[in-house]
C-alpha cells in the first residue's frame, strides 16, 4: 500500500531526527566549553594572564593564608609547607604544598581553588599551579607541588589578607576504578 510505504518513510525520518537530537545533547558539552572560553567564564583551572603592571607595590603587604582540603573518600594527605606568607602586590611568590598518597594503589586527583574573600580571586594571578592539570600519584608516593603567583596591584586597598584554599577531588575512572 502506498500510505504504508509513506508512513514508514516518514517515521524513519522522524526517528533519525530523534537520534540526531540525542547526539545534539552531547554536542552541547564541547559547545558549552567553547562559549565559556569565549566569554571568559569558568576559568578556575586556566592560567591567568600576567598582570600588565609588574611594578611591585612595596607600600603595602598582603597576608596569604594557605589552606588545604581533600574531598571525602580521597586517601591523600595534603598540606601547605607554610601556613601563611606575607607578600607585596606585584611580587612574584612561590609556595609549596605536599601530598602523600596513603593508599596502596595509583590515584588521580584534581585540585580546585577557592578564595576568601571570593572577589579576591580575580586579583590572584597564578602563573604556575598544580591545579592546572590532573595529578597522578603512585601507591605511597609523596610529591611537592609549587604554586607561583602574583597579587595584582589593583587589589582594593581594603583587602589585606586573602585565604587561598585548595580542595583535591578524586578523578574517578581514570585508573579503571570508579
Amino acid at each position, binding site marked *: 500500500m502506498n*500510505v504504508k510505504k*509513506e*508512513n514508514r518513510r*516518514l*517515521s524513519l525520518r*522522524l*526517528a533519525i*531526527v*530523534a*537520534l*540526531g*537530537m*540525542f*547526539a*545534539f*545533547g*552531547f554536542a*552541547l*558539552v564541547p559547545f*558549552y566549553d567553547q562559549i*565559556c572560553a569565549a*566569554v571568559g*567564564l*569558568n576559568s578556575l*583551572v586556566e592560567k591567568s594572564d600576567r598582570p600588565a603592571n609588574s611594578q611591585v607595590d612595596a607600600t603595602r603587604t598582603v597576608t596569604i593564608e594557605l589552606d588545604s582540603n581533600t*574531598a571525602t573518600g580521597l586517601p591523600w594527605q595534603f598540606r601547605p609547607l607554610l601556613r601563611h606568607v606575607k607578600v607585596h602586590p606585584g611580587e612574584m611568590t612561590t609556595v609549596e604544598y605536599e601530598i602523600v598518597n596513603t593508599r596502596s594503589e595509583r590515584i588521580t*586527583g*584534581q585540585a*580546585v581553588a577557592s578564595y576568601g574573600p571570593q572577589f579576591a580571586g580575580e586579583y590572584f594571578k597564578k602563573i604556575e599551579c598544580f591545579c592546572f592539570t590532573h595529578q597522578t600519584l603512585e601507591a605511597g608516593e609523596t610529591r611537592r607541588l609549587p604554586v607561583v603567583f602574583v597579587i595584582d596591584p589593583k587589589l582594593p586597598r581594603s583587602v589585606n589578607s586573602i585565604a587561598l584554599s585548595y580542595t*583535591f*577531588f*578524586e*578523578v*574517578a*575512572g*581514570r585508573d579503571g*576504578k*570508579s
Partner: protein
Amino acid sequence: MSAVVDTHGHDHSHEHGHGHHGGYGGIMRWITTTNHKDIGTLYLWFSFIMFMTGGAMAMAIRLELFQPGIQFFNPDLFNQFTTMHGLIMVFGAIMPVFVGFANWQIPMMIGAPDMAFARLNNWSFWLLPFAATLLVLSFFMPGGAPGVGWTLYAPLTVQMGIGMDLTIFAVHLLGMSSILGSINIITTILNMRAPGMTLMRMPLFVWTWLITAYLLVAVMPVLAGAVTMTLTDRHFGTSFFNASGGGDPVLYQHIFWFFGHPEVYIIALPGFGVISQVIPAFSRKPLFGYASMVYATSAIAILSFIVWAHHMYTVGMPVTGQLFFMYATILIAVPTGVKVFNWVATMWRGSLTFETPMLFACGFLFMFTLGGMTGLVLALVPVDIQLQDTYYVVAHFHYVMVAGALFAAFAGIYFWIPKWTGKMYDETLGKIHFWLTLIFFNMIFFVQHFLGLAGMPRRIPDYPLIFETWNKISSIGAFGMGLTQLLFLYVVLKCIRSGPPAPAKPWEGADSLEWTHLPTPVPYHTWETPPVLK
C-alpha cells in the same frame, strides 16, 4: 470508561458481524489492544492513577507545611516527596492525559481509521506502567527516592543512592514512550487525513498536537542525553558534571532546560487545543482567527527553543546573556496574547451557555492568563534574582500547569465523555466539581504569591512563624482540592455505569467530524471508509 467501550464494541460487532479484539477478553484485551480508542482509554486511566499518586504526595508536602517545625516527615523524605510529586505529575499525569486525548480524538477528527502504527501505539503506552513502577520503587531503595528536585540537578544527582538510577531508567522509558508516540502522531496527521481535510482545515486540537509532537521529537532525546550523562558520571567514570574531573554542574542546567522549556509548551499546547475546541462549541460561533491561532502556536513552539536560560539567571552568566533571554522570553507573550485574544473574541457576542466543559474552559482562561502574567514578572532579570526559588515561582508554574493544563484536561473529558461512552455525566455534580476545584486551587496557590514575595523559599520543610497563616490556608486548600478529585472519579464512574443516554450531539455548537459525522456513542471502529470533505 472500559465497561462502556466494551458494550459499544459489542453492539458494533452485532451490526457488522465481527468481533473487535481478536478473540482476547479480559485483561489480555487491554494488553494486546491496538485500537486507538482502547489505547486512549488506557492513557486516560493511567494518568488519573498517576494524578492521584502525585496528588497524595502533594498533600503530604502540604501536611508537613501546615505548621512551622518538623512534624510528620524528616526533611529527607520531604525532599523525596517534592521530587517525585514533580516527576509523576509532569511525566505520569499531565503528558499522558493529553496523549490519551490525542489517541481518542486525532483519528476521529481527521477521518483516519486508526493511528498510523497501531502496534507501536500499544508499546508506547505499555512502557509507561513500567516507568511508573520504577519511579515508585525508588522509595523503597536504600537511601530512598532521589530528593534532588524534579529537575534532577547535578551535582546532587551524582551523589544520590540507587534510587537515582531507577529514576534515570524511568526517565529513559518515559522519553522513549513519548518519542514513539510522537512519531506515530506526526505520521498519522501528515499521511492519514481524509480526502479534502487540508492542513488548514484541521481542527485546532489536531494542529496543537502536530506541533507538540514535533517539540517532543526534538527535545525528549536531549533529556535522555542529560540523564545518560548523569548515569555515566555516577558509574562509568566520566566527568560531564563533576567539577573535580573538569566537568561543570551548570552545564547540566543548560542541557536540562534546553529540554525543559519546550517541555513547558509540550504540556500547555495540547491544552490550548482542547480549549480551542470547547470555547467555539459553547459560544456557537466558529473559532475567531483560526489561521492566526495556527501561526501563534508555531511561533510559541519556535521561540520556546531560545529562552531556556531564564530558568537560571542566577548561575552567573554575562549580562548580555541575561538580557537576550529576558527579551526572548517577553517576546513569547505576543503569540500567547494572540491566543488569549482569539479565545475571548470567539466568546464575544456568541450565544454562550456554561455547561461544565465551558466552565473549565473559562476557568482556564482566567487562571492561565494570571499564570502568564506572573511568568512575565519572573522573566525580568532583576525581579527574578529576588524571587527565584521562592513560593512565587511555585505559584506561577502551578497556575499554568494546574489551572492551565489540568483545567483543559477536565474541560476535554467533560466535553468528549458523552461521545466516548454514549452517556451523559451528571451536570450538577460536574459543576460542583468545577467550583470546588477552582476555589480550592486558588486557596492553595494564590496565597503562595504572598509567601514568595515575603521571601519564603521553596523545597524547604520548615519556615519561620510569620509565614504560618498563609501556609495554613494553602494546606487546607490542598486537602480540599485532593478530596474534590474523588468527586471527579465518582462523576466519571457514575456516567459510565448509570448515566442517561447522551443525545447524538449534546453540544449544539460542536462542529468537528466526530460530532457531525459519527454516531454517539462512537462505534469501536470508525472511518473504515474515509469521509470526503468538500
